[in-house]
């Protein structure tokens, strides 16, 4: 009926023999009385005359004291064996707890927060484990992190629960279920407990393709109310032709059933740029544009604050962050025999520092970000990071000229290429030019039916763009597309993007570009935690969990350079924090957790130790009251 889960019986017997012998030895030593000299023993004799009559009873009491001590010892040693009812051991369960640590679990509808209440519930489940049950605690956000082994050790499990932290990501239930299935493979009494507020995305999709192999899935609901107002989207971009100014797009979402008023603040470089009041209808998603803003050169942050009786339970989605590329003057070298169209186009961007030289002149000693070559090759000793070839020369160019072509246009082009952003090339007419012959690794950005006419690539570490015709031989120079093409190309070379700056999204793996040839970088998160990341192929990989500004540092000492970037939650599903009391996985409704009641553990060693303690107290009391001596 009772089985041992700890030390085997023979070991217990050995321990009892050794410790019991020691107890006996101590008992014999205890019987060696202390000596006390008295002046007149006959007086004591008179006193003891009555006691001697009950000497036999005294001896019996002494033996009782010894037996009590041995019994106490036996209880404690038996407790070492961890005795448990055999029937309970046979029906033991193996439980994987998927504890939702997504952003919605940061909601404050429960005190102090959903995640803390969820942790308390899991701790209660741990306390309610049966005698042979084992449990594994896993933190489930966009990633799945097991925090303990499959264990019956309540201390280990509670420590794992203590380490759970909610992140600014959405929970990936599919990943969690797959992990649970793999962890429970081949184990008896498999059970999966999902402790969540139910904001788990599309549950029909989550359950698809996951064969849980008969594991029982239970749901422990967390949360009470779902009133929330969120910033669901946030983007910012500089104007292409006036990069000191920018415009902001953001999307506000009211998930409540009532009209709410909020205060929306925009902060540029930590200073308030704009404050406005916004009214949101019930369940309304409101996009807002802020045009022609100025006053921020680096960071931009949006904040919302509920006003009046508006309730906002989730602070995590009340902030959004963006980082604008650093503004600096781009040094451009133009090698041209003279080109009015080119000159006019480059004048449009006041942040360009243009140096003009004749195609027969020597290259200046200065270093340039971009060299624009108008039908020529770069002069000897030209120092430039990137090259734009307009009318690629037959010799000395980055690509070969395949053949002469006439009366052609752009029939195909890469519409997603940053070079051709906001440009319509359908009707461009070219009288004469060359079909280019790109090398392996080069990218054809635009081509006519006669061959590639716009190619980008990299030569000796320097990026280039080659145009297969002279712009003056086309109507391109008469179009708005011409200056846009030039400025897009220069911006692409210097990596100064003027598109909407959608920051990194949390819950995804970020490929962070790392300047230089560093092999490791340091990444400081919004919470101040610093991680060291390895760099591979010029990029560091990082799984982003928290929203806010990140700081990527490369190098040491004076050569240390730091790059900032931002990350946002930007997941409307996580902003819908209305808790679900029931959950349906696929088409199967999940049951409530059962069998975790108090006393289910049935570990007898607690009672044995308690009994030992009580006996010890009794023995102590009776000894000092001279009952058992």
């Amino acid at each position, binding site marked *: 009926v009772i089985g041992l889960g700890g030390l085997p019986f023979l070991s217990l017997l050995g321990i009892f023999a050794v410790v019991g012998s020691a107890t006996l030895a101590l008992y014999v030593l*205890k*019987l060696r*009385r*202390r*000596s*006390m*000299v*008295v*002046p*007149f*023993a*006959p*007086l*004591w*004799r*008179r*006193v*003891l005359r009555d*006691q001697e009559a009950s000497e036999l009873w*005294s001896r019996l009491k002494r033996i009782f004291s010894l037996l009590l001590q041995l019994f106490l010892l036996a209880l404690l040693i038996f407790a070492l064996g961890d005795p448990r009812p055999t029937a309970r051991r046979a029906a033991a369960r193996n439980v994987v707890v998927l504890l939702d640590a997504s952003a919605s679990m940061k909601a404050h509808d429960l005190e102090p927060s959903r995640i803390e209440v969820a942790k308390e519930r899991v701790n209660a489940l741990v306390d309610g484990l049966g005698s042979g049950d084992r449990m594994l605690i896993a933190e489930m956000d966009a990633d799945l992190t097991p925090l303990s082994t499959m264990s019956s050790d309540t201390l280990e499990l509670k420590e794992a629960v203590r380490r759970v932290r909610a992140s600014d990501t959405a929970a990936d239930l599919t990943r969690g279920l797959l992990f649970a299935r793999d962890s429970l493979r081949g184990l008896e009494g498999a059970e999966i407990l999902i402790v969540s507020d139910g904001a788990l995305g599309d549950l029909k999709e989550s359950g698809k393709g996951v064969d849980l192999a008969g594991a029982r899935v239970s749901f422990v609901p967390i949360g009470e109310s779902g009133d929330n107002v969120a910033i669901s989207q946030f983007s910012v971009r500089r104007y292409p032709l006036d990069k000191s100014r920018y415009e902001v797009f953001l999307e506000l979402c009211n998930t409540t059933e009532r009209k709410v008023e909020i205060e929306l603040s925009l902060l540029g470089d930590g200073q308030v740029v704009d404050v406005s009041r916004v009214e949101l209808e019930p369940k309304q998603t409101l996009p807002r544009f802020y045009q022609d803003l100025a006053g921020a050169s680096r960071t931009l942050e949006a904040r919302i604050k509920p006003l009046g009786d508006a309730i906002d339970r989730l602070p995590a989605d009340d902030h959004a962050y963006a980082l604008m590329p650093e503004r600096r003057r781009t040094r451009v070298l133009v090698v041209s025999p003279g080109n009015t169209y080119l000159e006019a186009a480059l004048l449009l961007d006041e942040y360009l520092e243009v140096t003009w030289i004749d195609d027969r002149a020597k290259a200046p000693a200065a270093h340039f970000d971009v060299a624009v070559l108008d039908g020529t090759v770069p002069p000897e000793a030209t120092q430039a990071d990137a090259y734009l070839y307009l009318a690629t020369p037959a010799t000395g160019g980055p690509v070969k000229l395949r053949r002469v072509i006439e009366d052609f246009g752009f029939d195909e082009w890469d519409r997603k290429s940053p070079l051709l952003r906001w440009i319509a090339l359908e009707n461009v007419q070219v009288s004469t030019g060359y079909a280019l012959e790109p090398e392996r690794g080069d990218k054809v950005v635009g081509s006519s039916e006669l061959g590639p006419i716009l190619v980008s690539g990299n030569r000796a570490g320097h990026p280039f763009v080659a145009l297969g015709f002279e712009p003056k031989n086309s109507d391109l120079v008469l179009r708005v597309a011409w200056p846009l093409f030039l400025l897009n190309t220069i911006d692409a070379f210097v990596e100064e993007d003027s598109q909407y700056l959608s920051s990194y999204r949390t819950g995804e793996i970020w490929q962070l570009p790392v300047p230089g040839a560093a092999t490791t970088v340091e990444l400081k998160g919004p919470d101040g935690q610093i991680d060291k990341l390895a760099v591979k192929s010029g990029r560091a990989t990082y799984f982003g969990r928290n929203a806010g500004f990140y700081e990527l540092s490369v190098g040491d000492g004076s050569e240390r350079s730091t790059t900032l970037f931002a990350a946002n939650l930007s997941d409307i599903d996580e902003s819908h924090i209305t808790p679900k009391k029931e959950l349906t996985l696929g088409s199967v409704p999940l049951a409530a957790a059962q069998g975790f009641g108090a006393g289910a553990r049935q570990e007898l060693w607690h009672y044995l130790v308690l009994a030992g303690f009580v006996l010890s107290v009794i023995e102590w009391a009776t000894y000092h009251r*001279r009952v058992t*001596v």
Partner: protein
Amino acid sequence: MNIFEVFTRKKPRAPSLRPSEGLFDDDFQRKLESLAIVSRRVFRGRLRAERRSKKRGSGLEFADYRDYAAGDDFRFVDWNIYQRFGKLLVRLYEEEEDLSIYLIVDCSGSMGFGSGEKFKQARRLCAALAYVGLANLDRVTVVGVSNGRVSHLPATRGKTRIFKVFRFLDQLKAEGTTELASAMKTFVTQHKRRGVAVLISDLYDPAGFEGGINMLRYDKFEPYVLHVLDPNEASPKLEGDVRVYDCETGEAREVTLTEKLREQVQTAFGDYRAEIERFCAKNQVPYFAAETEVPFDELILRVFRRGGFLR
């Protein structure tokens, strides 16, 4: 006042006890000189002194007349009687002689029990009483009894002999058993001259304290009992299982000391003292309890005087 600490030194200086060392300071000494041990009976003395005796002699106190006989000193003839009655009568006067005082100190092991306070107290009392006796020109004999045997300082007179008394007391050791009956038997055999016998003892005699006192009574001594008591003896310090040894006989007994037993022991000690008091009262033997916690000068100057032992 704590002069007997000097006694216990291994190498006492000679003379070991000087007034300047506080044996008796001047004031206390004067008070002692004004005291005298009271004897309720009149004993025959040996030398002329200040005590009334049974003898008729040349004292100042008129005692009786007798007929003149040839050879009588004419100075003692009462000529007024002769003139009135025509008879020659001679005036007799009481002779004043000395008193024999025996100070018997119990030197058994129980007297030195613990820190030896009882033995110190006994010797202090003995010294003080000896001085009182010597100051009154009495014959003082100091006796130490232990193991049924007797060691004594021969009878001596005069204040100057007090240092002899001190040296004798200093040599006494608290060891051996208490056998008062046999010791007193030896004492009465050795000392034919009757007198006051002051027994200074804790009376822890396994054979019974009565035997020793009765021996003095039966041999016409006038016994006084100074019962030296140490209250700490009735309150054992240990607790729990102990083996109790008698300090004199070595008799052992296993005891578990509890609060209840401690109370019983205290009661037993009280009963024993009451038993002694009852015996002394019944047999008209003056009894004085000399507790170690009571300063000995207070015992001498107040308790003993109030009890009629000193005047």
